[in-house]
């Protein structure tokens, strides 16, 4: 291991404790707002906590990443440090994969086990004892207890906006790869162009997603509370949408950093990490398109 030079161990840092306080206030704030809304009490305190916590988190992100960028620019990081970052990002993405797996697992369980059992498959007890009228279907338009959970009138067709969105995200994976090749060849204007194009494609994707959600709520009665189809649909696409938003923000920050000259053709792990994340988000979408929209 030729790269075992002195490994950079940072000095004391105030950012982790700031991050903790920010995270704590944000989450307690969100929790308080939810509790107040469910109980019908005034959520003002919760909103304040959330607002302060979130501001602290944003401040921390600027400060912490800022100092990491400065250290990197000062040449404090060795190749070995770079490998630590690479392992870190890879395993973080793996943890995200597992998070989505939980929700995909819930989708498959509901669709292939719970709904058939409720409709009388197996020994049939769940059907005869609970809702004998209930019939198996997917998408599930009529729930076992339609009074508690009125089903959707219709679901989103995969061959309109979702297909377009698939094309958008797939092309954004191409554009970011072009930008990556350009960064290695130091073609600066090309990097900026294709990176900006990637962010734009992500933004358009999100625009369509928001439009689709509004359409679903207003015209299709497809909501979070319209039974297990709506539940899995909105939770999976919703978490994916949050990840696209975050990924696009990250790419935008990377674009800004590129403009400031933070990356060299040899050393640009920040860019690569963002690109890995973007590809991950892309793969999740392909799974969503197949398993949530088409099948």
């Amino acid at each position: 291991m030729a790269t075992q030079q002195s490994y950079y161990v940072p000095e004391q840092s105030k950012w982790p404790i700031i991050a903790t306080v920010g995270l704590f206030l944000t989450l307690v704030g969100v929790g308080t707002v939810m509790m107040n809304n469910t109980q019908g009490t005034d959520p003002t305190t919760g909103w304040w906590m959330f607002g302060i916590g979130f501001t602290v988190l944003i401040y921390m992100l600027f400060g912490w990443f800022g100092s990491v960028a400065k250290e990197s620019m000062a040449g404090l990081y060795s190749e070995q440090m770079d490998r630590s970052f690479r392992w870190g990002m890879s395993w973080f993405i793996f943890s995200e994969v597992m998070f989505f797996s939980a929700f995909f697992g819930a989708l498959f369980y509901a669709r292939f086990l719970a709904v058939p059992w409720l409709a009388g498959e197996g020994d049939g007890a769940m059907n005869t004892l609970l809702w004998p009228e209930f019939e198996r279907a997917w998408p599930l338009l009529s729930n076992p207890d339609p009074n508690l959970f009125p089903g959707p009138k219709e679901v989103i067709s995969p061959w309109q906006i979702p297909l377009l969105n698939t094309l958008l995200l797939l092309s954004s994976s191409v554009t970011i790869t072009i930008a990556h090749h350009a960064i290695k060849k130091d073609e600066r204007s090309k990097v900026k162009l294709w990176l900006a194009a990637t962010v734009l494609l992500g933004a358009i994707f999100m625009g369509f997603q928001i439009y689709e959600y509004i359409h679903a709520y207003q015209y299709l009665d497809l909501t979070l509370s319209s039974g297990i189809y709506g539940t899995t649909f909105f939770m999976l696409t919703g978490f994916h949408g949050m990840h696209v938003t975050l990924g696009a923000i990250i790419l935008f920050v990377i674009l800004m950093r590129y403009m400031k000259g933070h990356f060299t053709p040899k050393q640009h792990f920040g860019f690569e990490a963002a690109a890995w994340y973007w590809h991950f988000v892309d793969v999740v979408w392909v799974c969503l398109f197949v398993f949530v929209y088409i099948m």
Partner: protein
Amino acid sequence: MSAVVGEHHDDHHHGPAKGLTRWIYTTNHKDIGSMYLWFSFIMFLIGGTMALVIRAELFEPGMQIVDPGFFNQMTTMHGLIMVFGAVMPAFVGLANWLIPMMVGAPDMALPRMNNWSFWILPFAFALLLSSLFMEGGAPNFGWTFYAPLSTTYAPPSVTYFIFGVHMMGVSSIMGAINVIATILNLRAPGMTLMKMPLFVWTWLITAFLLIAVMPVLAGVVTMMLMDIHFDTSFFSAAGGGDPVLFQHVFWFFGHPEVYIMILPAFGVASQIIPTFSRKRLFGYPSMVYATASIAILSFVVWAHHMFTVGLPLAGELFFMYATMLIAVPTGVKVFNWVSTMFRGSLTFETPMLFAIAFVILFTIGGFSGLMLAIAPVDFQYHDTYFVVAHFHYVLVPGAIFSIFAAAYYWLPKWTGHMYDEALGKAHFWLSFIGLNLTFFPMHFVGLAGMPRRIPDYAMQFADFNMVSSMGAFLFGTTQLLFLFIVLKCIRGGKKATAQVWEGADGLEWTLPSPAPYHSFSEPPQVK
């Protein structure tokens, strides 16, 4: 490397900063390790106090001390605090202290993130504990928080519980990423994977398990949150969901989780037993492969927690056989520990006593686990005190004894002083007697049908419960002795040598005692 780095490193060598900010801002793996260990011990005492409330109520039949609602809060909080607050942070603390020293690294790979991983925990547990004082009380649905008890019928504090779990998950995932990056990237030249100490190996595999399943836990609590506040129907059959889905997702996390709490314990035993047997560990490669097999199998056995929930027959059979398969690699490990001791020059210092007790008593817990794995008879044991006896035998003389063993074994390296051997032995024997008195009778009342999580019981269980309660108070108060021993050792005692133990082998024993603030600024050569 540039001169900047050299300079930078130089002002590092002056040692720790002064005052409170040393602990709040620190990036040092030893500081962070110590904080994890102290935090874990405080949580151990809090969780233990709750256990004593439970045992006091169960001292005799009838309702005497607490009302049933509070009893439920105690069983729930005891479990959550011991699992997430005591055992897991203790092992992360050991990992922080030991892994950089064992692999010859200057520190953990990502020191600032390391600090963040720790400091999230006190906040998360403050949130969880604060729910005791909320209207409606603390979570009362058991540490496994099955829906709909934890959704439709939960107290309002469940929302804070959910966000507390989210924070613990963030902390665990970041801690695990740090461990993996350190092990894979910061090993000294010459230390190949198959030369790593077993504690490092077991932690590498544990970290993988953590990253794989903590997000699933985050997923399941998120589903609860949505069911509670946004009318989704994950766990509501009326909307096409299923409460059993909760159990599947939870136990997909939960079973690897129990190995997260035991694999590092295997690592500790594999460090200590060779030292006091003055022999090399028997079957090192098979230990590594056995650990990996256990980890992989842990992903395909989760439904053995759910045999009575109405699984299809094929499911019962699959999960029964898969679970029994785990006995094979575990058996390999026990065999190797025993073979290491075979014909060794054994001495019985406190760490060795805890390690030997670990091997014997953990094996008892393993055997009762095999009994529980048999699906048809599990219908009898399910949700009885037999299950409580089983998992306390693997957690108390398993995980917690290994943590005590590790503390005694490495305390001289950490503090520079030997602990008081006589007191250490007293701590061991009192703990050993206390825990067996507490948990062994639970096998009998469980087999006879006493249900768990119920504050009252039928007359015929009275004698065994009284024994359990007395054992619990013995075990609980004995832990104050441990606190005293540790404090005494920090303040003074016989000077420890660098190697500390005659048979000790490994990079951490090449450093002076107490270990310097920064472990290896220059990586050592490993032959």
